[in-house]
């Protein structure tokens, strides 16, 4: 029997970690729709300051406000990455000059000792389940010119031994995916499919 995948959102002491509460249920719905993975239907929130976060090898993190990790949060993040886990961090502001971006990227660099670098658009992340030959899919917020009025061509990452340990997005998937799963019936193409790729990548690499 395979352990159920549990979608876990990282709770950190600074900022609004809970700004996209529907991303978890929506991605769980997509995993059940498109894969045969064993998935828990109940997402969880886990404090990054607690070693309990190591029970969830994939952590999702988002927010709009400045990020400043505590010592315990930094230590646990380092431990998660060292043991082979992965953090998916999404800028809910969709703004490269926003406070979340500036503080979160600096905090990640300080915690892990390595800077984020652009992830090539032919990375295997973009073909794990669904193919994205042009790289990360755009979001409606990018196309509408909100935030920094940019379409970000790349995601960023910190890799360890060729494996993505931290995946960082400025594309605001948190807004894009934070809706009730039932609303997918009104879409011509499910925009959470890239989320499925991220989770399956984390489960297999």
């Amino acid at each position, binding site marked *: 029997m*395979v352990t159920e995948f549990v979608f876990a959102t990282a709770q950190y002491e600074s900022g609004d970690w809970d700004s996209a509460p529907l991303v978890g249920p929506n991605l769980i719905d997509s995993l059940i729709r498109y894969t045969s993975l064993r998935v828990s239907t109940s997402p969880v929130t886990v404090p990054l300051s607690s070693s309990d976060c190591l029970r969830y090898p994939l952590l999702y993190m988002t927010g709009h406000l400045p990020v400043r990790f505590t010592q315990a949060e930094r230590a646990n993040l380092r431990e998660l990455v060292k043991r082979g886990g992965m953090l998916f961090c999404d800028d809910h502001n969709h703004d490269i000059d926003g406070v979340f971006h500036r503080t979160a990227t600096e905090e990640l660099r300080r915690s892990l000792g390595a800077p984020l670098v652009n992830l090539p658009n032919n990375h295997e992340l973009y073909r794990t389940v669904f193919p994205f030959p042009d790289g990360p899919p755009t979001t409606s917020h990018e196309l509408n010119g909100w935030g920094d009025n940019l379409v970000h061509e790349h995601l960023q990452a910190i890799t360890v031994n060729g494996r993505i340990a931290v995946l960082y997005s400025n594309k605001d998937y948190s807004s894009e995916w934070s809706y009730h799963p039932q609303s997918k019936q009104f879409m011509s193409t499910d925009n959470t499919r890239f989320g499925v790729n991220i989770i*399956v990548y984390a489960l297999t690499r």
Partner: protein
Amino acid sequence: MRSRAELLLRLIGIAAILAWVALALVPRGGGHAVGAVASLGSDLPRWTRDPGVRTVHVQLDTLPDAATASWLAALRRAGVAVTWEGDVAPLAVETWRAAGPSGEVVVLATAGGDVVLRDALGALDTLRGGETSVRLASVEGDIAITTATQSARTGTAPARASKAVYVAGAAGWEGKFLVAALEEAGWRVDARLFVAPGKDVVQGRTGVALDTAGYSAVILLDSAAAEAVRGVEGFVRSGGGAVLAGTASRGRRVAPLVAWRAGARVVAPLGTMGGDTAWRGLSRVPLTLSSAGGALPLEVRGSAAAVAARRHHAGRVAAVGYDETWRWRMTGGPSSVAEHRAWWAGIVSSVAARPAAIGEETRTGAAPVAALHEILGPPTGTAFSGGAPFPRDALANLLGLLALAALLGEWLLRRTRGAR
């Protein structure tokens, strides 16, 4: 005129001389010789040159060196009945290369007491009593174990490039961290992880036949993998290794490999720590071993095995009941990543295909007591089965002494009574 006593002495003297002459004229035949290890250096050439030596008995308080043992064996082959006795403790050393990228040398030593382990560069360790094994990252030259009175020596097989490991199973944390652990241990891993019907995540080579030319071992993570992967039985039959993890032992395709029954999954009691090695995670599938099939329990938890292994024709199969070892790695103590990696690498290495080395020879020095048994037979415990040896030289000396004493006595008696 001689007195009666003088006459008697004269007759004794003459008889002793005649007997001495007769003894000298009789050819030597059916001769026996007895030697000890310390004197074999001088005894062996003499015994070899003397055609009268028909039986040799050696008393051993320590083992003869290889040249001496070979000489005794040559005497035996030349028709001399060579027997031996002695209370020498069995001593043996065996080495082999662990299959896998580490190329470790596994040394298995058997001795009555403590032994010193050495290689060409010097002493490596002291092994305490009985049977013991050690794993060495590298060695130089031969491996030897020595006690106060004897030693055993053997060579080591050259290191070889390891082949890949094939992993198959449902996508999940167990597969991900197993692959990671094996890669960290140096294995090249090809993986096929099932995501959805008709959709697998593949790592490494695809469409490659499962044979020992390309793979050392295959790991099936669950019963779905055991059903999906073809050719596992033939792979093991030809010398490959298989690890059946979790519920994989239930797969019909691997039924010929299995000599145990995978029971219902058991979940660890509330409060069990992630690093608890009694669970290696938080759940396991108990394995009930069949009476037939030659399966050995390698880890027993409660009344059932958690890890078991058996041979299947030229290959080996291991069953691993733990199905959430990723929790051990992620939530265990500071060393849990290394422990998880070493444990899985050890399991895979224990079953991985290990081709016979070309040019390897069995060396008699690896088990000198056994070799002595082989070339000289078992110890007899007595000097000769045909009775006590004939003391030819001593008898000749005795006869000479008797003749001299008798003739001297006769002469003294005659002088005391004034006769010439």
